[in-house]
């Protein structure tokens, strides 16, 4: 006898409950209960279980158990998996190619070409020899302790993922800023993406794609890192001075002229802050993504944890910190440069 037997009897649902009963094998708990006799039925109010699916199932076998929920989700997902794959696979294939090509480019090109190119990019976006020198020291340090190859792999993944984030995130942010309904719809999704534990992204992705495909970790990183650039683009455009927008209207600008001539340039500092955050978040995710075969420094961190190799883990961890500082300095400096040339505030 179970606690809620009386409830179903009172409601007159006993017949419905017993319809498919006793068809399955008896569970261990039931067997134990049987050996103890009917004593278990005399439960005091103190021990009254919450009427959960499992508790109700004991009294009425027509009610499913909680494990059926998780199982249902799984079978449901497996059921639509093939259909999903048909849609998502070709859509995300360019991501795989980009990641593969970038990884190949950055690891196969000799260091004496890659490093100067990176310094040149740094100079181009920051116009500051100080930052270029700083980057040179940081990269030199990593290369000196033989982490150059892994660092380049990590950088390659981040470049591609951050690029895709900006490519998708900025238009989404612009659309949100112009449409309140869309904003109300997208913000909860962004909240969910930001708070869902990163490991959880990986689970359905593993079902969808083979672990050897780079897009598996690419999508995980992008989903996690796209949030700030969307949010800050939306915010940045909404924060553009209303008086300036009014002036643009008063002088007869079209929506397109307003967007490209006024709103985006004035929102650029905020958008760049979003890009900076996006890069930082993809760097955080690249470690977790190494669980699903993302190459780079994350793999070494993972090895440190798995094999309890303290030194390997720590050095790789500091390597990631060094990369993070370098990327942050470069994006912040280019942000400051945009800000200074506009001096909008």
């Amino acid at each position, binding site marked *: 006898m179970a606690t809620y037997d009386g409830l179903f009897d009172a409601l007159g649902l006993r017949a419905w409950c017993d319809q498919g009963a006793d068809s399955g094998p008896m569970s261990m708990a039931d067997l134990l209960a049987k050996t103890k006799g009917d004593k278990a039925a005399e439960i005091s109010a103190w021990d009254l279980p919450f009427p959960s699916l499992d508790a109700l199932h004991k009294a009425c076998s027509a009610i499913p158990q909680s494990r059926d929920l998780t199982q249902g989700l799984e079978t449901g997902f497996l059921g639509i998996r093939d259909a999903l794959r048909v849609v998502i696979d070709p859509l995300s294939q360019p991501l795989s190619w980009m990641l593969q090509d970038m990884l190949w480019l950055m690891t196969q090109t000799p260091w004496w070409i890659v490093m100067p190119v990176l310094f040149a990019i740094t100079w181009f976006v920051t116009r500051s020899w100080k930052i270029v020198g700083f980057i040179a020291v940081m990269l030199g340090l990593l290369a000196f302790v033989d982490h150059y190859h892994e660092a380049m792999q990590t950088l390659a993944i981040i470049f591609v993922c951050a690029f895709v984030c900006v490519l998708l995130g900025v238009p989404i942010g612009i659309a949100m800023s112009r449409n309140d309904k869309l904003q109300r719809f997208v913000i909860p999704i962004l909240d969910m993406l930001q708070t869902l534990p990163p490991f959880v992204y990986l689970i359905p992705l593993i079902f969808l794609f083979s672990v050897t495909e780079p897009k598996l970790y690419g999508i995980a990183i992008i989903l996690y890192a796209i949030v700030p650039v969307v949010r800050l683009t939306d915010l940045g455009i909404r924060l553009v001075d209303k*008086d300036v927008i009014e*002036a643009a*209207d*008063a002088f007869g600008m079209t929506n397109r002229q307003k967007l490209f001539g*006024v709103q985006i340039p004035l929102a650029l500092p905020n958008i760049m802050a979003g890009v900076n955050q996006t890069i930082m978040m993809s760097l955080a995710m690249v470690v977790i993504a190494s669980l699903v075969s993302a190459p780079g420094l994350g793999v070494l961190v993972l090895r440190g944890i798995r094999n309890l190799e303290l030194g390997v883990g720590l050095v790789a961890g500091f390597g990631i910190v060094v990369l993070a500082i370098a990327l942050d300095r470069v994006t912040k400096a280019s942000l400051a440069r945009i800000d200074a040339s506009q001096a909008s505030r």
Partner: protein
Amino acid sequence: MTHTSNTAMAEPRDESLPWADEDAKRPVKVSIRHLYKIFGDDPKAALEKVREGMGKPELLEAENHVLGLSDINVDIRDGEITVIMGLSGSGKSTLIRHLNRLIEPTAGEILFNGDDILNWNEGQLRELRRKNMSMVFQKFALLPHRTVTENAAMALHTRGFARSEYEEEATRWLDRVGLGGYGEQYPHQLSGGMQQRVGIARALASNSEIMLMDEAFSALDPLIRTDMQDLLLELQAELHKTVVFITHDLDEALKLADHLVILKDGAVVQQGEPQHILLNPNDPYIEDFVADINRARVLRVRSVMTRGKPSGEDFAGDVDQNENLESVIARAEGAMDKRYRVTRDGKPVGTLDMKAIMKALVPRKVEG
């Protein structure tokens, strides 16, 4: 001041006298007819209540709608400066934004050269804003990421002209407002007064016949404000634009206005020639307004003189009809018993008694 509007002048005129021609009305450029604006969820329903006679406080209380503008009728004449004056919340900024439809009215008509712009589609409206009406803003509203030249050329750039085509025009207007050589600076590098000069150059460079100025000088400090007012009058004497100027400052209104409209709680309290309003306020509200004014400096001889061919010989001298009373008092050295012959372009048009001056200096009370 080369002309006046005689709509508000009560006394009959002798058309044969020399001053009659200066009062010829200029053509109406923009006409606002029975304009209403109600803010709220259901303005149409609230409009019915207002038409039935509900006032602003009751409407807010009972219907939770804000009466922005109520039955506004104003004619804006070609080549005149029409000043709309009122305290904050009186609806003046709302009114000026109806002229280029930055705000949609609840009811009424806005006739531009006789055509109701409320029936215009987006494309026509854009053309109107690009070519016919330019605007100067209280907070300047310059584009911070563009240079001064690019800002001045905003209207031309918006119309699709390339830099090589608009640069000369923009530079010319920047020179005209006294900003020659600042073209490559960014707005934030300029002071407030200079930024507003860019704002004016921007409006002028669009070559529109109508300029809307929304509290254009209110954010500037007093000395610079005076400079800017002088600049505007100087430009106006040269260009004869149709200017609609919003202000909360009566001194500024009296200095600039050819036609003065006084708003209170979204309704027109009085409108007409500023001198006339000053001498004949029709509402205690306006009386309060004009009480603190230096009347001797604002009032002009023509407003207080006795019209008609001067007779007699005992004149202390000649004064021009556009001189202000302050200068006449200074010339009389305070004497109360003098009479002056008033002239316009050298021809005698009336007599001025010092007693009339003294009477005009005391604000008149509205009966009742």
